[in-house]
């Protein structure tokens, strides 16, 4: 994922048992804060569908 140009920090993996409530909270907080810090994605975003696309190639 990083290879294709998605910033590190935008994707997180974690293994949290149903008994680990505090870990869950920590992870969610961390995920949201790192992703917020990165801001909205600039690339790999599908542009809204518009009629402008219809201009011939």
């Amino acid at each position: 994922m990083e290879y294709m140009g998605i910033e590190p920090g935008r994707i997180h993996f974690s293994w949290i048992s149903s008994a680990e409530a505090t870990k869950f909270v920590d992870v969610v907080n961390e995920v949201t804060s790192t992703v917020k810090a990165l801001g909205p994605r600039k690339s790999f975003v599908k542009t809204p569908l518009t009629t402008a696309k219809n201009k011939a190639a």
Partner: protein
Amino acid sequence: MNVIKIDKKTWTEGIGRLQGFYRLIGPVKDGDFYQFKALEKGESPDFSMLNTRLSPKSIIYPQSEVMFEYSLDETRDDCHVIKEIQVEYSPQVVFGIRPCDAKAFLLVQRNFETPEYKDPYWIRLYETTALIGLACNTPCSTCFCVDAGSGPFNDAGLDILLIDAGEYYYARVNTAKGEKILKDSGWSEETETKDAELAIENLKQAAENRITARISTDRLKEKGVPDLFNAPFWEDVAFACINCGTCTYVCPTCWCFDIQDEVRGTDGVRMRNWDSCMYPLFTLHGSGHNPRDAKTKRLRQRFMHKLKYYVDKYNDGIQCVGCGRCINLCPVNIDIRKICEAMNGFEPEQKSI
């Protein structure tokens, strides 16, 4: 049919002047190959190409084209109402289209503009586009346009045909649209004499003599559809095919499309995308049944359509202009010339080749 002479020294000047009236499109080198692109201000079409890798069909028939839009927002009055999109069609001029590719538009027109059905999208773009061809002085070894009913100097479908004669171009004007463009360009209005016609004829002969790729189509019509359909050679010729659809996408005369909806939030569009008879989904029915469930059947369909059904239906040659793109770009060397020979020469009792 007037012929005028354009001094190459005045060429760019005229192109510049035309920029003021039209959107110009022409071949430009893009990486390893040539493509038709909109020309920027000050840019001239690059005529050093043999031909563009992709055919110019996308200029009039884009690979993806939005047709309708709608809203799923229930608070709006026009919720769920499918509306045709509004596109501005400003007049455009395509430079340097090869005669085979121009003729291809006439073939495609058979599909998009019939007495019963008129495709508004294709027709609008076709009508606002002028085609200025470039005759082929040096056809490629895979060009079989002459046998496919076109030719390196063929005017069919062209508003103007340009002929490169060294220091200058001859321009053969075929339509009123073409005359108007010449006027707007300010190149020259002097009609050439018989000499010009003769010079063009000589160049044409030279070009046609260089064509080495030949096909025979004379007996396609007399063959029986079931005979050809059940011919044993299909298994052999289709073996290598990977059903990629490259041949249909690069072909100037392939016209099939698929309709898709795409929604983002509450905004939706209905668009069409090129499709290909080489794809299994092309004929997959809602029931799950697929009449062309094997690649051999799909390959057979492509060639039967081009070289038999079309021939029978319109009685005006094959649905191919001999541009050679499918031969050059097929990853596994499926060659329409070979298949056409097999079909044209097929005798029902013949054993597998």
